């Protein structure tokens, strides 16, 4: 049974007319309210994940639950459908179970606080924010076991519950949830931060209702939604063809030896409606790389990619949702059936953006970016130090930004909004670590007129024995290049023992024991290149060799030959470029690198790891053991 909304005042909002200026002022006020939510969170959260890396996302919705401000689209419809209870004044909800909100949060680490905002007895709005909790219990520190086979192994699952009822805080409930965590202090502070952010936004909305009149406020938010609808309708009509285009890409493996898993999306327009159909995507995995993709969230991603170029000032909202139909097959990797494990979902989440880019840019290569989304690579390191204190690190890494129409992809930067690295001096101060190296990997960015960004190499020396876990992808299927640009280099992880022995370990490993003075070289992927590398200015290539971003050997991918002094050998360069042009023939829009068969054949030699085994599914869509 869906949620029942209890209002002491059932008067519906009167539709008024809102002049265009008031509308803009309200839009600006909403934008400011969202900025305040972010600011409140950053100031009050405690875990490095939220505080330092910015892994949290706000939402302001109207009284019908449609997103007015935010990034990931509204999940409130899904919440209301799934919640068997009442929504009343003085309530505040907490939840973390992806299956209870149709995937609006995509793993149990994301705790979501939802605050219905009432005014004069009427439901006026919702504010919500979710953030990544460092640890919610379960079988491994950090609560994201890459080898999980069911969500029950991934820590505490919180269905939608009221942490405030009639304004009264349910301390026992929160205590129970926090008790599951290995880092209850961080969790408590981060939960407080989420609550404080929602309250700030709620106050702003109440003030706006007072300032402009409640009916004007409600009418205005409706108009903002309608404006997005109109804008998007025009844009879709111009930009999306009725002819079908498809794009597919892969998740390299599932951490259990199987892979790659295919993600496929087909896009076309029927009249004013755009269809995004994931038919052809592989079935769900027995492992944890499933990503419960919320349809609305994907609509939002799609919309943001579409509209960025045309009015970047726009306050993006849900208004255009009716224009887009997202079809995801049940039981697929993107809509797994309960209780499939989800803790490795970051890889498919990342890959969705490469697919979006590939879909939208196919017909307009001048706007197309290369590939560069691996995931959010994770490192976990936990143990008990010699003083007997528990330590637990969860770190998100970065890689190369793809080559872009605008220019080179930045080296070692974040594709996710708001994320930053954690200072290494901070890591060394609070964890038994020495970061021996923190740089980017020469030649790892795909060659191109605009070079792909280099991936990062971060070398962790462990000062205490413990266990580590690594989640990364793009180690087997490379990030593709476009318009003549070459694929970026793949990720790899090397464990070096004190005697110098180096072992390549997988990119999805769990519970891996490390000893004092072991060094982990955590190497991420490079972005794909954009445009013909043979057109890149040889002097720039030579400069990047001096800078250590490209090697002398790597310069040859640009057809650039350097002499002993590091200067461009003009004649040899011209000859090499002529030869290369002749030999390769015409360049296509995409360069995916070798096909899957070839990648398999060369896997051990090139990656140091055996090729993943092609997964097979029986009629229940479950990967073969």
């Amino acid at each position, binding site marked *: 049974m869906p949620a029942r909304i209890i209002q002491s005042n059932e008067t519906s909002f009167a539709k008024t007319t809102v002049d265009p200026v008031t509308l*803009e002022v309200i839009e600006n006020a909403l934008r*400011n309210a969202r900025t305040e939510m972010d600011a409140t969170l950053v100031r009050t959260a*405690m875990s490095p994940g939220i505080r330092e890396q910015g892994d949290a996302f706000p939402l302001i919705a109207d009284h019908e639950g449609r997103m007015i401000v935010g990034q990931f689209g509204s999940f409130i419809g899904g919440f209301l459908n799934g919640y068997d209870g009442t929504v009343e004044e003085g309530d505040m909800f907490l939840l973390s179970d992806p299956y209870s909100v149709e995937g609006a949060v995509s793993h149990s680490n994301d705790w979501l606080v939802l605050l219905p905002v009432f005014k004069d007895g009427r439901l006026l709005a919702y504010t919500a924010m979710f953030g990544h909790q460092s640890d919610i219990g379960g079988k491994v520190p950090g609560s994201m076991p890459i080898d999980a086979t069911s969500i029950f192994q991934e820590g505490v699952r919180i269905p939608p519950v009221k942490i405030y009822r009639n304004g009264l805080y349910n301390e026992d409930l929160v205590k129970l949830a926090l008790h599951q965590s290995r880092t209850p202090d961080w969790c408590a502070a981060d939960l407080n931060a989420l609550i404080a952010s929602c309250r700030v936004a709620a106050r702003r909305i109440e003030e706006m209702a007072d300032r402009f009149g409640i009916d004007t406020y409600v009418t205005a938010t409706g108009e903002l939604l309608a404006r997005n609808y109109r*804008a998007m309708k025009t844009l879709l009509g111009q930009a999306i063809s009725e002819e079908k285009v498809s794009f597919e890409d892969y998740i390299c493996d599932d951490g259990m030896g199987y892979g790659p898993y295919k993600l496929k999306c087909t896009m076309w327009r029927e009249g004013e409606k755009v269809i995004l159909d994931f038919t052809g995507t592989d079935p769900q995995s027995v492992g944890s790389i499933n990503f419960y993709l919320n349809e609305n969230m994907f609509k939002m991603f799609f919309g943001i990619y579409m509209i960025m170029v045309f*009015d970047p000032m726009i306050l993006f909202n849900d208004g255009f949702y009716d224009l887009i139909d997202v079809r995801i097959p049940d039981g697929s990797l993107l809509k797994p059936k309960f209780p499939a494990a989800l803790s490795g979902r970051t890889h498919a989440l990342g890959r969705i953006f490469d697919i979006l880019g590939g879909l939208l840019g196919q017909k307009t290569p001048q706007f197309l970016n290369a590939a560069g989304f691996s995931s959010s690579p994770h490192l976990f390191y936990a143990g008990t130090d010699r003083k007997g204190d528990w330590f637990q690190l969860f770190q998100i890494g970065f890689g190369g930004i793809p080559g872009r129409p605008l220019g080179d992809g930045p080296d070692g930067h974040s594709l996710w909004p708001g994320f930053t690295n954690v200072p290494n001096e901070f890591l060394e*101060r609070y964890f038994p670590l020495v970061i021996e190296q923190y740089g980017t990997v020469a030649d790892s960015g795909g060659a191109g007129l605009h070079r792909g960004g280099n991936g990062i190499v971060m070398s962790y020396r462990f000062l205490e024995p413990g266990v580590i876990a690594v989640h990364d992808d793009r180690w087997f299927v490379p990030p593709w290049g476009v318009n003549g640009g070459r694929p970026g280099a793949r990720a790899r992880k090397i464990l070096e023992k004190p005697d110098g022995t180096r072992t390549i370990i997988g990119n999805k490993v769990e519970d891996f024991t490390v000893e004092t003075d072991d060094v982990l070289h955590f190497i991420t992927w490079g972005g794909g290149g954009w445009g013909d590398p043979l057109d890149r200015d040889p002097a720039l290539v030579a400069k990047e060799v001096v800078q250590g971003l490209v090697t002398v050997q790597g310069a040859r991918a640009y057809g650039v030959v350097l002499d002993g002094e590091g200067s461009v050998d003009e004649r040899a360069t011209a000859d090499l470029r002529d030869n290369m042009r002749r030999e390769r023939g015409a360049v296509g829009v995409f360069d995916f690198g070798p096909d899957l068969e070839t990648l398999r054949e060369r896997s051990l030699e090139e990656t140091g790891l055996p090729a993943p085994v092609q997964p097979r599914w029986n009629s229940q869509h479950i990967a073969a053991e």
Partner: protein
Amino acid sequence: MSYRLGVDVGGTFTDLLLFAEDKGTFWRHKTPSTPHDSSVGILTGVEAVCAKAGITPSDVEIFLHGTTVATNAVLEGKGARVGLIVTQGYRQIMQIARSFVPGGLAGWIVWPKPQPLAALEDTFEIMGRMDARGNELRPIDDDDIRAALLKIKAQGVEALTVSLMNAYLNGAHERRVGELAAEILPDVPVSLSHEVLPEMQEYERTLTTVANAAVRPVVGRYVRNLRAKLRDAGMAGQLSLLRSDGGLMSSEKSEEQPVSLLMSGPAGGVTGAIWVGKNAGIRNILTLDVGGTSTDVALIENLEARRVRTTEVGHLAVRASALDVKTVGAGGGSIAYVPQLTGALRVGPQSAGAVPGPVAYGKGGTLPTVTDANVVLGYLPEALLGGSFKLDRPAAVAAVQTIADALGIDLFEAARGIIDIVNENMFGALRMISVQQGYDPRDFALMGFGGAGPLHVNAVARLMGSWPAVSPVSPGVLCALGDATTRMRTETARSFSKLASDTTVDELCGILRDMADAITADDTEVDFEVDVRYSGQAFEVPMPVTLDALEAEGIANLTRRFDDEHRRLFTFNMDSQHEIVNLRAIGLGKALDLPAARLPEGNGDPCEAKIRDHELWIDGRMQPAVIYDRAKLKAKDVIKGPAIVVEMDSTTLIEADCVATVDHVGNILITLA
């Protein structure tokens, strides 16, 4: 009689304010800036303002100067070529920065990545390593360092910086590099990160050290040139520069620490506001400094401006104390437009700047700006005082009409819409520094200055509930006034990084006393600040402390007050341990008692100052209004809105349902009628 001369060099104008210390009277002057060599404009201004006062430059005892020379060097990439020596494995520290990409989802597609301040080809690694307790993990090697220095020398750098991992805890390795550099590159100035900024966070420490080195030659040249020119003009007095944190430092000191000058410009306005507040008897002030392309806001509580530990310049966040000034891309030159796709009215952040400027200025601008909207509505009368400059109202009307047409609304509604949107943006920025820091804006007055501040201050005060709205004396040259009326400030910092439970009052006070002793002797006052956080937090709160209170109450004095402050800022406390992160001693020069000159008292009727009748569009209709000459207003005059008060370089708007009173020193205080 002794005179203080405040000089603020802006992008368009150089403002000068000559202050007679004992009487509190002042003379002001505005002259076009001369970007190729600012000293030319300054000298012209000095001659002019001295002539106004009937003195010669030799009568000026102290020359106080706010400058954006350091800021511009950073923003325009015109700093020196800086070589950088880092720990092995960290060559790309500036290239990776913090991995942060601004903008929302998909922001990376359109982000142009700025070039690092120290080029990668000028960055070299050396062996050796300190750990996070300041112990040596691996030794340095002189031959290895020499080799790196020789390579740097070959690159032809103009300055050298050394930033090694964990040097904030132990600077021995950096010092050795410095010694060898003195041999190998004797003519190149060297900065060591543990001296410039002895604080955790390798990127921020490196960036701050590099930024300091990059702007040092530029600032040095600038200061020496200016000093020489002033001496030539007969000025023998002291030359001081305004720091980002609102204090002054000697010009010699500023050559060493130019990174402290990066927010010198905005700091002048805030210190000016403090002086105005002191004289007007207003102790809590929000400032609204509206310029051509942007607006700066700050919070003053009990006549002290809030400070932060980070100075943000363009894309760079440098660790140096600054006044907590927030900037929004909304100013008089902000351009209004209606994107075809959404049909929404947008204002800024693109700006017409000084060139081509607003349409009404007739300098070639064609796009409607906030200033044009003010002209259309009648808030900016066509003929400014003095008659030297006439605004082109028909052109402004035509430009704003394009917005009205695109929106399908009336001309005046469109113009007011542009104003309302820009006010809303300023409101958002003000809320970030007030409500978001735990302050209730209703406890504050709002002071509008800069060329356009007094035009917007009334409307924004209404949004904030911050009354009175204040148009200070000389709003157009308040920065120069601030330069002239603030005091010397020096700061020394040290990393501490200990749990509160692991230290004692004796240890803490001992170090603080040592630090105080290290600050120059002629400072009359020393303040202390201690950064505290909950252990594990990556964010600290600076707490002012006194040695007396610490000794009387113990460390609890610090932790209890931190808890209170944390609750005010963040709404909750934690059970975690307290960590004492950094210590600072701040030496303050002699407090100045510089009263403002009193205005003759009138009978409350401003009719003598009336210039003419006028009309302006407010509250949805054209209404009769009066224009007054600020120079002729008397204390206690009461002006009913709607009205406009004009002066040389600024215009104050009093809205329809408001009333303004002129206080005893000439500030206009606007309240709801």
